[in-house]
């Protein structure tokens, strides 16, 4: 079982994301849509914007992650690429983790990289920026993991997206609450430790459980 | 050229949306995501919420509309259903308008129907609710029309979603500005006439031009 398949898959996924474009720029697009639309709709008061900034940036990250989920396994499922994973000579759980990694690289990372700019534009207080970045760094992989599980579970049904949203939403809300809670605490001068610790625990939990669950779900749905 | 194709198409589109689920619940999902997340991020001060309410509801409508665009023509394009439109015995522009209508029914209408609830939850002043509904009623069809045009134009490219957003976004931002402007005016006790008039003019313009342009764009892209 050679591990060379993993970098090959990662490279191809990223190349497809760049080529297809949609996925690779969507997160940034959402971030900027939020950055532009919210002040437009809300009015440009710095105080107002500052209070809603973490929530808005997190909503952008969530939307970006959610949006790319339909494309996480379905195209491969439909064009017969996914069934090639089970021919026996490939490390399937490794492939699953690679795929989830590429999902995070495409949807999570850009939001993290552009978060400082977004924070600036929404007048987020400086002392909260570090915590915002940290919360995104811990939290967005959780989004990718939970979303990946939902995508794998709903692959075989034709009722994909609703079920997917219904599955994802309750799992994701706590992440969002802890993350924005951490940023709000930091902005108000309190310690964000407790919130971030909770987030980190969630991440560890998801990292250990999800890849196996996804593998099993895919295996079942491919039939 | 029989017009019986149009109700048949509309029925099938709605049935697919219900069956597939994703599209039909996405708008509400966004609306409630916004309704739940924004107060979480902002804190539940009625005044603050009231000022951002129209902007938030409109952003939800916009995102819902945008999200469903990738599925407006592409599945039909890929499974060969779309090329059946051009066999010569079907009223293609009528089909296009039917498809756009179903997009609006799926993405615009639910937001309108749930806007009163959302307005209540965000403490929007009562005198602004009517104008909000009116702005949604005039504005969301414009979103569907413009989005449909962008979807049709980008159908043949392999760079679907980014290009689509780039085409849609600048055209849609004015709609958002005028619509939220109208609601803000009403909330402050001024007349929203001017803004709503502008919106209505945009709608009439889009209604006359877009179906023809979409037909032409599809025709070319099908090659």
């Amino acid at each position: 079982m050679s591990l060379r398949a993993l970098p090959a898959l990662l490279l191809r996924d990223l190349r497809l994301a760049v080529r297809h474009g949609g996925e690779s720029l969507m997160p940034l697009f959402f971030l900027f849509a939020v950055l532009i639309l919210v002040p437009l709709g809300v009015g440009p008061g710095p105080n107002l914007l500052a209070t809603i900034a973490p929530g808005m940036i997190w909503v952008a990250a969530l939307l970006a992650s959610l949006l790319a989920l339909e494309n996480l396994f379905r195209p491969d499922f439909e064009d017969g690429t996914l069934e090639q994973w089970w021919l026996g000579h490939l490390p399937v759980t490794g492939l699953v983790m690679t795929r989830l990694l590429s999902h995070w690289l495409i949807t999570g990372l850009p939001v993290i990289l552009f978060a400082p700019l977004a924070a600036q534009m929404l007048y987020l207080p400086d002392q909260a920026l570090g915590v915002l970045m940290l919360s995104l760094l811990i939290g967005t992989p959780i989004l990718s993991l939970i979303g990946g599980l939902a995508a794998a579970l709903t692959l075989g049904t034709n009722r994909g997206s609703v079920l997917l949203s219904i599955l994802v939403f309750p799992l994701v809300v706590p992440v969002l609450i802890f993350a924005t809670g951490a940023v709000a605490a930091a902005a108000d001068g309190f310690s964000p430790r407790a919130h971030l610790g909770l987030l980190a625990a969630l991440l560890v939990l998801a990292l250990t459980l999800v890849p196996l669950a996804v593998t099993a779900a895919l295996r079942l749905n491919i039939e | 050229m029989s017009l019986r194709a149009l109700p048949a198409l509309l029925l099938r589109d709605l049935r697919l949306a219900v069956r597939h689920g994703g599209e039909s619940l996405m708008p509400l999902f966004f609306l409630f995501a916004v309704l739940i997340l924004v107060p979480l991020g902002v804190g539940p001060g009625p005044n603050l919420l009231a000022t951002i309410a129209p902007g938030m509801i409109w952003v939800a409508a916009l995102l819902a509309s945008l999200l469903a665009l990738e599925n407006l023509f592409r599945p039909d394009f890929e499974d060969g259903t779309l090329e059946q439109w051009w066999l010569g015995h079907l009223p293609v522009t009528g089909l296009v308008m039917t498809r756009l209508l179903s997009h609006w029914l799926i993405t615009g209408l639910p937001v309108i129907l749930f806007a009163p609830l959302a307005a209540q939850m965000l403490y929007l002043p009562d005198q602004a609710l009517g104008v909000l509904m009116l702005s949604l009623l005039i504005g969301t069809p414009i979103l569907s029309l413009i989005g449909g045009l962008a979807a049709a134009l980008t159908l043949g490219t392999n760079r679907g979603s980014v290009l689509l957003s780039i085409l849609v976004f600048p055209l849609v931002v004015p709609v958002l500005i005028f619509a939220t402007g109208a609601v803000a005016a009403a909330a402050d006790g001024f007349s929203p006439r001017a803004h709503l008039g502008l919106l209505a003019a945009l709608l009439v313009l889009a209604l006359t031009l877009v179906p023809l342009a979409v037909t032409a764009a599809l025709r070319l892209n099908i090659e």
Partner: protein
Amino acid sequence: MIWKTIKVGFHRLGSAPSFYRFSTVVSPWLWAGFALCSVIGVYYALYVVPPDYQQSDSFRILYVHVPSAWQAMAGYVVMSILAAIALIWRIRLTEIMAMMCAPIGAAFTAICLATGSIWGRPMWGTWWEWDARLTSMLVLLFIYLGIMGLYAAFDDKRKGARVACILVLVGLVNIPIIHFSVEWWTTLHQGKTIRIFGESSMHYSMMPPLIWMTIGVKLMFGAALLDRARNELLTQDRRKGWVRKILSNKGD
């Protein structure tokens, strides 16, 4: 009848090698004309015209702002005409020329937006405001960019050009909106003050540089258009014999 003439004319000129020769000869003259007009225009604009009694010297921005604004819009109209011809008669040359109008028009739109914004700072105290004229001009820039992006996204350039031509024609509705926005809605932006024909509310001494610059910008548009169209033709026909022949004939 007249349509037929246009069609035949385009077809005759539209043969790739003959357009290539035509543009090679004509474009340098257009560039020369542009250089002349703009040198005269800028000299008048900065040295000769007296300061405005209201706006002092800041009004000199007008001589780049207004010609660029006009050309951004005129360029769009030209592009639309070419696009209509391309869609009706499927003449390749007009497809290419229409597509090549977009980057040039976008450049002038950008100049107009940038200079307008710079001018707005001292005059209105703000760089930007969401008023109808400004918004519609920004939309024009995005339409130009959208056309360029759409054209670039197709493997088959002819198909891409025709699809983008549809967008060109749809976007045409924005042009009257830009022009009449100051009359239809109350805006920050100044109303119609300049008339080439009839009574202009602008002082006559301020007119000459505007005219020079306007003509110069138009010549430049034509020159850049010919250059770009020629390049695009070469790119599309790179595998064809006539391009190979040009390659071996000239050292270039």
